């Protein structure tokens, strides 16, 4: 069975979520891999969310916001834009390919762009393979086994 990446998307309510909605109502074909979480603004996306998603088994995280200057809340997307590089940098230091975290701008009317971004991201993660970060403590399991053995 081929690897189907699990992707988490944080979508801004005003642009990207609406754009995704439009993509849906427009009957555009979108890979089912992305699981969308609506936030009011991309500025709400706390790096902790991204790390949580990755640690809980996501293979990639996509953050979508309004185009710079178009934010419903004026500047929220700029904050997101500033946080993401730090997050990616952290992620990279932890040995995770930073491409697994991605920020894109999709407006309410850009259904096709949404389709394009999601498809492309899915393919990219597919090629990067599974992240498999889900908690499993090999050390402890081994130690427990040993203790039992003794």
């Amino acid at each position, binding site marked *: 069975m081929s690897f189907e990446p699990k992707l988490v998307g944080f979508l801004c309510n005003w642009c990207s979520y609406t754009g995704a909605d439009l993509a849906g109502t427009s009957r555009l074909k979108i890979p089912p891999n992305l699981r969308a979480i609506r936030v009011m603004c991309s500025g709400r996306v*706390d*790096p*902790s969310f*991204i*790390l*949580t998603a*990755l*640690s809980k088994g996501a293979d990639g995280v996509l953050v979508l916001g309004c185009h*710079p200057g178009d934010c419903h809340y004026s500047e929220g997307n*700029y*904050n997101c*834009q*500033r*946080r*993401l*590089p*730090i*997050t990616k*940098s*952290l*992620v990279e*230091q*932890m*040995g*995770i390919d930073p491409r697994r975290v991605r920020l894109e701008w999709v407006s309410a009317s850009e259904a096709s762009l949404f389709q394009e971004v999601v498809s492309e991201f899915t393919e990219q993660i597919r090629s990067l393979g599974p*992240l*498999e*970060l889900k*908690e*499993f*403590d*090999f*050390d*402890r399991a*081994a*130690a427990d086994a*040993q*203790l039992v053995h003794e």
Partner: protein
Amino acid sequence: MPSSSMSEGMMAKPKLALYWAASCGGCEIAVLDTELKVLEIADFFDIIFWPCALDFKYDDVRAMEDKSITLTLFNGAIRNSENYEIAKLLRQKSVVMCAFGSCASDGGIPALANLKSKEEILQYVYHDSPSTTNPENVRPETAHQVAEGTLRLPEMWNTVRSLGQVVDVDYIIPGCPPQPDQISIVVDAVVDILKNGKPLPPKGTVLGADVRTCCDECDRKKDVKKIKQFVRPHEVVADPEVCLLEQGILCMGPATRAGCGGKCVNAGVPCRGCYGQPANVKDQGAKMASAIGGVLDTDDPKEIEELVATIPDMAGTFYRFSMSESLLRRRQG
């Protein structure tokens, strides 16, 4: 519930165990730093296990009845199989298990090793480091045959764990080390509970610390922040009156639990985050990343990247004491 067991032990002198796992030993010194309080402790408790101070054998502990130790103060992270074994053992024998110090509670400095795998560490320490001379390519072994039989050493783990990640922990006393005055306060509280039947705090409570963050204890003047450039403490003469972060010095204060009394920041050194994440914060490093990101003084993607690149050892900075508790562990395998 520990409360019932605790009251049972009221008859005799309560028993105290102190243990030192993967840590520097500073926590032990901190206990001694409580000065006269240590006599009070010795007077009030029956210290039945403290390998650092007195000669006890693990078998003595194993021989004890379960839940016979009233309180265990466990410091140090879980780095190897021995740490793990004793943690489990003490948990089994203790009524109250307390993670004492940063290493036990969040992984501490030892957990920074989690940025590398065990193999990478061994490779570097025994082969690649410039000061190493190891012509025979010796590596530590967990079992070694000698004439007398097999010598055993604990197995080093691939990942450093906090105490809470391997056993059930009742309370946490953070700090690297926990401040002596905070220790004294905790001791007083314990005495109060045991002597006067005060109710126990809820399980999981962080003792000897505050709900706010380090900033609360920092005397510096704080204003709206916009960071144009990151500098390291030795690169500037910092304004003693102004928030270090505003001056571009990466201070973990905003994302670190209060309790230390703001010693570092008030002395002009940025907070390293030893008291761990504040209440309500899930991941100290990620939260700090979020906070710092918000105040970078540019909207230009390229400038942002350039600015971010000037933060040295980002993970090491943001998770200096809390790597084990980080949401994001090193990718396995």
